[in-house]
């Protein structure tokens, strides 16, 4: 008898928890729809053509647009990628292709890269300030780009390593068997085979860095000018959104909301693209 009661209790508990898990997921879903819905609705209400074509006026009643900030972010991202992508990719190649050379160093580097991806971004900004802004004598786009590159390198390294590992070992063996050197194998066989997915890893790092604000606070500083000189304080979309959103002026806040919408839309498209490319390139090796 008691066993049966226990059984019944267990079944009731199970049903309750089953419903609980479903309910919790629905709550999360609703919450996230609320948040993104709110951001999209206030964003679309404030977005207009001036946002893309005008520069900040400094007048709180007519703040102009964010052309300078959008251009600034694109330049910052490009500069960060010029350093971050090659360094990250080479590290990824090392981790994936030269693994047998030094087991311990390999493990340490991989672990360090993982730990670095979790570094608080404000720390990156402060280190950038002490290492670049202070010696150079002022805030600059270079310092901002360096801080972003710092964040990109470990992400690109780890994702490209994972992607290169997906390339079947037989590809390498075939190439080496024909007399190719390791470098030839990497550049002519492994990298082309994994090109799509390596691009995914780079885009992933890109998406992460595009939304960063904290590393730029003490490095690029932000600017309301249409500046393209990286030696001076540099405009950035996220910095501009932050200063407008926390400011007291309604018109400027609307500008911040529109900026947030543009950023989120961009990240959404990037994520869709990543998923599409990653899916395709993973499947490529699974089928064969």
């Amino acid at each position, binding site marked *: 008898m008691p066993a049966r009661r226990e059984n019944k209790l*267990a079944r009731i508990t199970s049903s309750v*928890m089953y419903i609980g898990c479903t309910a919790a997921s629905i709550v999360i879903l609703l919450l996230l729809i609320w948040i993104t819905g709110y951001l999209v609705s206030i964003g679309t209400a404030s977005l207009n053509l001036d946002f893309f074509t005008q520069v900040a006026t400094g007048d709180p009643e007519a703040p102009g647009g964010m052309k300078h900030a959008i251009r600034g972010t694109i330049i910052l991202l490009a500069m960060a990628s010029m350093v971050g992508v090659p360094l990250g990719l080479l590290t990824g190649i090392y981790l994936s292709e030269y693994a047998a050379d030094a087991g311990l160093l390999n493990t340490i580097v991989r672990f360090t890269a993982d730990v670095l991806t*979790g570094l608080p971004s404000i720390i990156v900004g402060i280190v950038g300030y002490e290492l670049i802004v202070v010696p150079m004598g002022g805030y600059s786009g270079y310092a901002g780009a360096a801080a972003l590159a710092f964040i990109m390198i470990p992400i690109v*390294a780890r994702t490209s390593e994972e992607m290169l590992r997906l390339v079947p070992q037989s590809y390498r063996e075939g190439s080496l068997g024909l007399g190719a050197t390791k470098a030839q194998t990497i550049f002519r066989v492994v990298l082309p085979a994994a090109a799509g997915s390596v691009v995914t890893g780079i885009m992933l790092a890109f998406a992460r860095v595009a939304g960063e604000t904290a590393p730029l606070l003490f490095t690029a500083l932000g600017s309301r000018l249409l500046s393209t000189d990286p030696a001076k304080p540099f405009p950035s979309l996220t910095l501009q959104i932050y200063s407008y959103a926390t400011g007291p002026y309604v018109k400027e806040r609307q500008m911040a909301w529109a900026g947030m919408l543009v950023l989120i839309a961009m990240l959404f498209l990037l994520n869709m693209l990543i998923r599409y490319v990653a899916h395709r390139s993973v499947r490529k090796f699974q089928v064969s």
Partner: protein
Amino acid sequence: MAESATNPAGVLTASGGGFAQASPRKRRTAKASVVLFDTALKWVCRGAACTILIMLALPLIVLIRQAWPAIQAYGAGFLVTSTWRANELEQPARDAAGKIIIEGGETVMTVLPAQFGALPVLYGTAVSSAIALLVAVPFGLAAALFIVRIAPKLKIAGPLSFLIEFLAAIPSLAYGIWGLFVLAPLLSTTIGPAMAKVLGNVPGFDWMFYQTIIIGGTATRRPISFTGRDMLCGGLVLGIMILPIITAVSRDVLKNVPRAQIEGSVALGATWWQSSIEMLRFGRAGLFGAVMLGLARAAGETMAITMVIGNNNQIVPSPFAPAQTMASLLANEFAEATTGMHSAALLYVALILLVMSLLFNIVARYFVVGKAVK
């Protein structure tokens, strides 16, 4: 790892070399540049890998060096001192005192130490992260179980996973804006007063709604005003922010639990929940890692928390009082304190934050990577 250990690449390169020896002289000189390139690439890649190590060491070295005046002046007592008076230090006289310390004057060093203490920000970071985990862990685990065990039946596991990954990619600034314009007003006008109405007169809950302030030597008890930008708002926003990452990592951990483990328990008559418990127990190391990863993210988060936590260096037990975390302190004060002990103390805080987040991350990675994927 096992694969690379048995990788015959080395053997094959050697036989390739043998082949080159048999080829004509002209081919051989061409080969020399190829071999040179091969060696160069190997060293360049090795160099790049070493950059990663430097990238870890560099912040530590820089922060220790720049924070050294504060470390020397306060030592470990910094962690338990609750006074943070930055404004007085900005006076010129105090600035000069800060310079003397660097040169080694000891009498001034004993005057200044009471001014900077990290206890309020440590408290703020700990409590806001705790609130965040309290929100994110139950919901995150429930959602992970849902995605792994229920969603596939409904054929929505794919879209859900995409959604979770996209949400993890939304910048913290977005959550900050939502917290500032939606959650904070809601807390200050609706939730806060409602809770005060219900719990305000219940004994044992008054610490939530009253704050003791010392004015002119006498302690006065005052009701806390609901500004909305407080510890609770900060904790909730952090919780929502780390929800996607906890869910995503837990999902991966639970997916790696061998099917046989679950099917076995179901075959023995276990209910859905009993087999889920079995699943959670099997993946507990990885799940712990997921929680640590979330904790590291919450503790180091800057932008969103700065926007909603109220930025007040105080230790008040009430969740409705404004507070400050290590990261928000840095975001607020670092740009204004470029000289003297203030900036050294801030860098000391940054160093503590860095070491703490490194520890969290190391523990998390150890459990997620080392234990779960087996």
